[in-house]
């Protein structure tokens, strides 16, 4: 559905996007992830045909965004970071205007508007001026505007930014509903956000793609194995000797004593192994008391920090070498 190759966008001498390449298959839900200013919005704006790239190729459904902008625009629904709303208009008349603007045939307009209103749970607010709506509702109007002409591809720039937790859940649910019928690309700098909604992540930093993979695959590749925390009552020195020697345990540290004689130990497991049964058996067999054990997968948060740090360190090293 999307093919991006060596995309470059420069503002003056400053490259906002610097050689980005990725593909998105039809029906996929993909997240663009990166810190603020990484080039996510610019990449998305190029894909919608809102502005041309300085260099490189961007195609939507086989149509080049520069060569065939109208073919691209009829296939893309776009929700910018700030939803493009006319505050003085009522929701329904705004959507009617958008339908006309998007070239929806006259006889289908009414039906499309009503369907967008119902899909975005806006029926009750349909005759209210947009300026009177809460931020969450405005975001829904933004989404309704994006799906109005039934596009194959939805591009949503930070769809949940600035919303309260309840609104975030609603919008996320809405995106999940829409994902069934559309290919979706959404961006975020909040990492937990994106992992809830997407199948695949493209991590962008400083205008470059630093990783592109499924969430699981990324955590496998960059996160190593699971992190296991155990709480054990017993002698610290003996623990310190025993835990690292267990098969499947890559690293073990005693972090602190939680209460008298109870120690919290952080273990890193080797990839693709669940060390919990082994650790539990070993601890109990050695005569310690096992108080608690939790496993956590490495989150996107850490992977992301690790990825962007790596890039920054590389850049620093290059700077020093130069």
């Amino acid at each position, binding site marked *: 559905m999307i093919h991006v190759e060596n995309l470059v*966008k420069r503002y003056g001498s400053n490259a906002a996007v610097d050689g980005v390449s990725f593909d998105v298959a039809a029906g996929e839900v993909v997240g663009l992830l990166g810190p603020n200013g990484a080039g996510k919005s*610019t990449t998305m*704006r190029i894909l*919608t*045909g*809102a*502005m*041309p790239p300085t260099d490189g190729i961007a195609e939507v459904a086989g149509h080049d965004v520069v060569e065939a902008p*109208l073919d691209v*625009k*009829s296939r*893309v629904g*776009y929700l*910018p*970071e*700030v*939803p*493009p*709303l*006319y*505050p*003085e*208009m009522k929701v329904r*008349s705004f959507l009617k*205007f*958008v339908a*006309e*603007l*998007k*070239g929806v045939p006259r006889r289908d307009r009414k039906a499309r508007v009503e369907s967008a209103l119902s899909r975005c749970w806006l029926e009750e607010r349909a005759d209210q*001026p947009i300026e009177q709506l809460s931020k969450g509702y405005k975001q829904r109007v933004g989404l309704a*505007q994006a799906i109005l002409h039934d596009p194959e591809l939805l591009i949503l720039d930070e769809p949940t930014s600035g919303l309260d937790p309840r609104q975030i859940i609603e919008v996320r649910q809405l995106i999940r509903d829409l994902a069934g019928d559309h290919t979706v690309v959404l961006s975020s700098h909040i990492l937990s956000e994106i992992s809830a909604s997407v199948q695949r992540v493209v991590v962008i930093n400083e205008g470059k793609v630093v990783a592109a993979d499924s969430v699981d695959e990324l955590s496998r590749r960059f996160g190593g194995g699971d992190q296991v925390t155990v709480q054990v009552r017993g002698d610290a020195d003996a623990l310190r000797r025993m835990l690292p020697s267990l098969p499947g345990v890559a690293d073990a540290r005693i972090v602190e004593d939680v209460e008298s004689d109870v120690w919290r130990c952080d273990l890193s497991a080797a990839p693709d192994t669940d060390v919990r049964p082994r650790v539990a058996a070993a601890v109990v067999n050695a005569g310690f008391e096992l108080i608690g054990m939790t496993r956590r997968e490495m989150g996107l948060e850490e992977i992301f920090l690790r990825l962007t740090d790596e890039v920054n360190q590389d850049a620093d090293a290059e700077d020093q070498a130069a």
Partner: protein
Amino acid sequence: MRFLRGGWAICKRELHSYFVSPVAYALLAIFWLAEGIFFVSILGYWAAQGRNADARVQEFGAEGNLLNVPAMVAGSFLDVTALVLMFVVPIIAMGLLSEEKRRGTMDLLLTSPVSNAGIMWGKFCGAYVFLLFMLTPPFLFQFVMDFYGDNEFGTFVTGFLGLALMSASMLAATLWVSSITKNQVVSAFAGYGVLMVFWFIDAPANLLPSIYQDGVRWLSIHNHFGDFRVGVISGRDLNYFVWFPAFFLFLTYTALESIRWRGVRSS
């Protein structure tokens, strides 16, 4: 109409937005009130002058001239209206494109299958229809006066045609200003600046070398309005009122092209 794709939808929306905007209502109220006051005082003034002229004719016979009061009223009223329009048009045009950029709705237009000519034309038409609507009551004042004054209607009809053409020119210039700004207030004041330049540009004409004088006089907006005001439609003036807006619409089109190519960054 592929060239103007999207223009009609944008025009309708723009026109509609004036009728839900408090600023537009305030402007309408002030404009109509001011026009009404001007009309009544102008009418009062020329009616008094007319009575004086009548009295002189009766006293001195043929040495006094009868005043054509309706023609005098029409002339003064059209002049005043033209000047008032110079202050009204920048306010009508200030938000046309600058607000789209500030609100981020430009993104909606840019990502819709709409041409730059369509955006430009839609904006221009929406605002122009509103301007003509504003000019309707002043037109009716004149009409009613001439209806009871059994005067020929020709003069003031050409006068209003002149006003309509002149306001199209003013609108095109201020639309362009709006296309290169991102703030309504800046747009309005810069619009005044541009209009004043073209209003007063002929003032220093006499000081210039003679070969430039005609050119500079030609550029002045109100010079071309003058003939319409006395009931004359000349090719020279029509020419001006076609080329002046065409030039600024072209500049607007270019500004939109530039926005498309460089990309606006919505705030």
